């Protein structure tokens, strides 16, 4: 059976908890220190988006295996306001919160696979995978 770690995000401490859980699993799977940093940073961005825009949500972290390849899958899920224009949020420098606007496009570059599923007023689910090379 697959072990799935689940962290509730409802304060800034949740971000730290999710990050630590991610780093631990990444290390167990055998990612090097650079990839560990990429994965934890990606989790940090996703968790922070949840905290910032949806106030609360969940991060699920699990190991995935696909035709002999191992990887780590991160799912960020919230029931927040949703994303109005997905194409726009994937542009570098676009922000609605006064930040750098590098979060989501950055996560896409940090990870190998990246999908957004968002419905206005109904929440957002972001799934991303990093494969072990």
């Amino acid at each position, binding site marked *: 059976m697959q072990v799935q770690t689940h962290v509730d995000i409802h304060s*800034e401490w949740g*971000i*730290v908890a999710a*990050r630590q859980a991610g780093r631990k699993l990444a290390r167990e799977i055998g990612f090097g*220190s*650079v990839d*560990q*940093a*990429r994965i*934890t*940073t990606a989790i*940090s*961005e996703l968790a*922070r988006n949840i905290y910032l825009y949806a106030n609360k949500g969940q991060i699920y972290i699990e190991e995935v295996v696909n035709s002999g390849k191992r990887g780590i899958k991160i799912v960020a899920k919230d029931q927040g306001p949703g994303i109005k224009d997905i194409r726009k949020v994937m542009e*570098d420098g676009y922000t609605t919160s006064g*930040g*750098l606007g*590098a*979060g989501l*496009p*950055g996560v896409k*570059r*940090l990870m190998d696979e990246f999908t957004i599923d968002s419905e206005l007023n109904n929440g957002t689910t972001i799934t991303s995978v990093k494969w072990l090379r």
Partner: protein
Amino acid sequence: MNSAIRNTILENKETIIDKWLSEIAKFKNDNQLQSITDTTYENTNREFVDKLFTTVQNGHQENVDEGLVLFTERLIQLGWPLNYITRGLQEFRKITVDTLSKQEEAGDNSYSIEVYKEIEDWIDRIVNVLVNEYSGSWENTVFLQKMALKELSAPLIPVFDKISVMPLVGTIDTERAKLIMENLLEGVIEHRAQVVLIDITGVPVVDTMVAHHIIQASEAVRLVGAQCILVGIRPEIAQTIVNLGIDLSNFPTKSSLKKGMESALELTKREIVDLED
């Protein structure tokens, strides 16, 4: 408490104590109490039940007995779980109600309900006071730790004339980012610093928010007439910063504090020379 009920409880004191002690001895194992020796555990149990009976005897209506509160305070200091207290009280209620319902008057339904209500009220009051006592002590601990953390969170250290260092260790959240900014600006003015080295060796993750805060802080430092140099960027952090696409190009950076110090000295037109003997 109704004095008739109080008297019945006191009459059955021995039975209740015996039963209570044997019940409470059972759940030693499933609490975090294994490390406590059997003698200490028994003595504490005995003291606890004695205190409870003193409360019954005094029959206070509003306040919980001072002795019981002091007893709880001691348990808190020794680190006993709250669980022990609440379960002890629940057990006490159960046993007392049990014992009293076996009395001769028990045939009367309304009487048993009244007994039950009296005991319920009495126990609830104690639970409230003791739980308050416990949570108060936790809140206090959290508060003290928060203060301690705050003192550690963003120190600005003047190392040379005109050069200060701010070493950052650990996670940076919004509150801490604010402190970093305040301490940086205050410190720059106070120490008349021209160059400030921000050392992020101990920061585990640099995401866009952390980068954003650092960029803002250095921009603010520039406005008060000093310059920031970001040092201690580990190779994996450098790669994630590039992947994230964070632009640090108008921000001087160095790999280590040592290199940063060298260029800070250069900027203030000084250098370190070895003394000749």
